[in-house]
């Protein structure tokens, strides 16, 4: 049997480091928001031969005075242009300029989002996050309404929510880092990934808590509460790891072999699910033990 609860201070240390780094990254670098949230244009262009030098393209587009212009190389002969303007005429002109460099260049995709649309998306995203947190909080309180011994049910809820915050902060922190150094965007898809992580990893936590509940009912008072938690964890360890493993497998394949368009979405899911599994094993249940100890010491 693995002694997870006894060694919880190490896991707290790891988690605290990750969460603080995550918060630091978000605080220092912020998120690199995509056009979904800022408005603007993203154009994907495929050149018929090698990609021309960056400054050649920049020089060409200079006279259009594109604000917030950025150019990113994609796979093969792809480039991705981004700028703040979201105007049909400008987009046409930009592509005409590109055609002057390479007349066989192909415009693979154009996304542009006007200010009114992006502000709507922003409101939607905030609403969705709020609603999800609310929904999950209600769900947890319903799921644990029958547990009250030796710690009251809302404390399980607290543990689960802390574990969720842990997963979300770390995922956002990693995306802040990726956004700052590799230009990875935080977009609507990222928000969808976060919500999916919320929904998926709370489930892991709940399964462990469920088992704790069951073992408490069976064990009686003679067992130490901490060892009940540790036994419950060990009993559910294989299923926690295996269920996450199957999800992680498909996500890894999606990242490596899947379409570029959903790569970072899949990555966000992968990071979230991985840390979600970690936190439900090493953090969420340990928190219950800590809360319990705190309770006893206070008495």
């Amino acid at each position, binding site marked *: 049997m693995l002694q997870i609860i006894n060694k919880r201070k190490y896991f707290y240390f790891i988690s605290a480091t990750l969460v603080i780094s995550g918060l630091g990254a978000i605080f220092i670098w912020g998120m690199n928001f995509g056009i979904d949230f800022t408005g603007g244009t993203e154009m*994907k262009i495929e050149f018929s031969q090698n990609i021309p030098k960056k400054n050649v393209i920049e020089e060409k587009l200079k006279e259009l005075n594109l604000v917030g212009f950025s150019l990113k190389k994609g796979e093969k002969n792809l480039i991705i242009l981004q700028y703040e303007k*979201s105007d*049909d005429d400008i*987009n046409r002109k930009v592509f005409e300029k590109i055609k002057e460099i390479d007349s066989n260049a*192909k*415009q*693979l*995709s*154009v*996304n*542009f*989002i*006007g200010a*009114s*649309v992006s502000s*709507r*998306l922003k*409101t*939607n*995203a905030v609403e*969705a996050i709020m*609603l*999800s947190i609310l*929904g*999950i909080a209600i*769900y947890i309180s319903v*799921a644990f309404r029958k547990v009250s011994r030796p710690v009251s049910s809302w404390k399980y809820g607290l543990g689960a929510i802390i574990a969720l915050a842990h997963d979300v902060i770390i995922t956002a922190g990693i995306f802040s880092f990726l956004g700052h150094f590799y230009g990875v965007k935080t977009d*609507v*898809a990222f928000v*969808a990934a976060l*919500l*999916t992580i*919320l*929904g998926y990893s709370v*489930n892991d936590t*709940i*399964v462990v808590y*469920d088992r704790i509940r069951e073992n408490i009912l069976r064990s009686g008072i003679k067992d130490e509460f901490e060892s009940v938690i540790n036994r419950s964890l060990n*009993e*559910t360890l294989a*299923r926690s790891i*295996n*269920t996450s*493993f*199957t*999800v992680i*497998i*498909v*996500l*890894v*394949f*999606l990242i*490596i*072999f*899947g*379409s*570029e*368009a*959903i790569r970072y*979405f899949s990555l966000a899911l992968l990071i979230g699910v991985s840390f979600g599994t970690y936190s439900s094993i090493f953090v969420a249940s340990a928190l219950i033990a800590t809360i319990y100890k705190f309770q006893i010491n206070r008495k």
Partner: protein
Amino acid sequence: MNLKNKLRTNFFLIFLLAVFSTFLSYPKAVSKISPVYNFFDKLKINLGLDLQGGIHLEYKADVSQIEKGKVGEAMEAVQDVIERRVNAFGVSEPLIYTTKSGADNILVVELAGIKDIEEAKSQIKGTPILEFKEESSEKEEDVEIPEEFLTQLNQQRKEKAEEILKKVLAGEDFAQLAKENSDDPGSKENGGEYDFVKKRSFVPEYEDVIFNKNLVDGTIYPSLVESSFGWHIIKKIQVRGEGDDQEFKSAHILFAKQTQPEPQKEFVSTGLTGKNLKNAKVELQNQGLAEPQVGLKFDDEGAKLFAEITKRNLKKQVAIYLDGEIISAPTVQAEITNGEAVITGNFTLEDAKNLVKNLNEGALPVPISLVSQNSVEASLGEISLRESMKAGAMGLGVILIFMIFYYRYLGLVASFSLLIYTALMVTIFKLSVLTPWGITFTLSGIAGFILSIGMAVDANILIFERTKEELASGRNVLGSIRQGFERAWPSIRDGNFSTIITSLILIWVGTGFVKGFAVVLIIGVIVSMFTAIVITKTILNFTLREWAEKRVWLIVPSHQKNSEK
């Protein structure tokens, strides 16, 4: 006995379901039997724009000029008009709908598999906005061009005319010169030529040359002719008929005279717009030069409005705006009650015909502007689809291997269930097309689908882990399996429930990408509960009998059975 029969029936039903969904989701499996293949191959998954290429456009309608209660009506009219336009370029199943986003009225146009995106956009945008405006009561200062400046301009124009006259008289190509120099839009493109018109159709100075100067057919009058329009170089082509029926065919090159411009006026909306139009047609009215004009016929409401407008503005100008630009501002001579109006502008015949076509297809009652575009080239969509399917298939393969390796016979059965799950999902996507709730499969949907494959075995893992525990605690094989299903159920229910909550929220507030993902995920969660629990359980109950009790290795390595505890 009864129970056994029921089990047999269930197993048989699952077998049928498996076969049916396999054929439907992968018709190639029966490609050798062509009638069956043809039957199953008919249904296709509805692919989204990001997978088959296409364009998603969102237009914001400016309804500030529309009365509050009539906004919905106006939006419907916009949708109708755009639909007609879009149908004209033959895209299969265009999707056009209006939606509200906050206070904005949005029109969404989705065209799948379209080749020329720019052309499509200009076609949609090309729908003209026709408006009738009247003079505002506030007068503006007249802007006058100094007289000397005008004289100077006209002098230059006349000199140019003389220069060209010399050239045509010297034998240079009349038609070519007309094309290059004429200021008459009605004839310019035809090399200055007008087809037969009746006598007294053109200005008197012009006809004087044709009828009274003894000009031979096919020759050019050797001097400039001045009229109110400017200076003409006239070529007589043919005169036919007698008396009042006399008709003539001619050509000319016009050098237009500049005159004092009409005083600029402020025009304000009258409420009469293109949506009140019944039809439009090109008219070649005999008035001065035979300039093409566009005749309009209003519907009842429009006719009434027009009558009021003309009555109100007698002897004043009413301006006709097309796409926000004034094209003509005639002075009202009388109240018009028959609901007919004419637009004269400097139309070429071609322009007039286009305008009529566009007006008949429908003029937009309100201006729209493009606020969001998402276009994907077909080849990119194809690659996305192929890559993601490959990734999904590989993920599926590894999960199958993992499950069989780790859970042995139970894993094998779970793998069957997972395959049935995959086929069933594809079947649902395909069959949904036949219902009003057709699911459009987008790239995010694929992500949701693949993720759901990873999650679909979760329930089985929960059950099997529980079964193993029960075995370890000394229960027999069949009993352990039964207990596994029973006791894992609350966890499965709770776990899936939280995923369903977040998916529902995503569907509710999300658009596009997010919705596509969440819809598939939620269907996946529900279907997987069926496959992982009902199908797995039925197959296990049907195949595992008393004989399995002595073969625990089917489920766990045999040394494990009593090692724990």
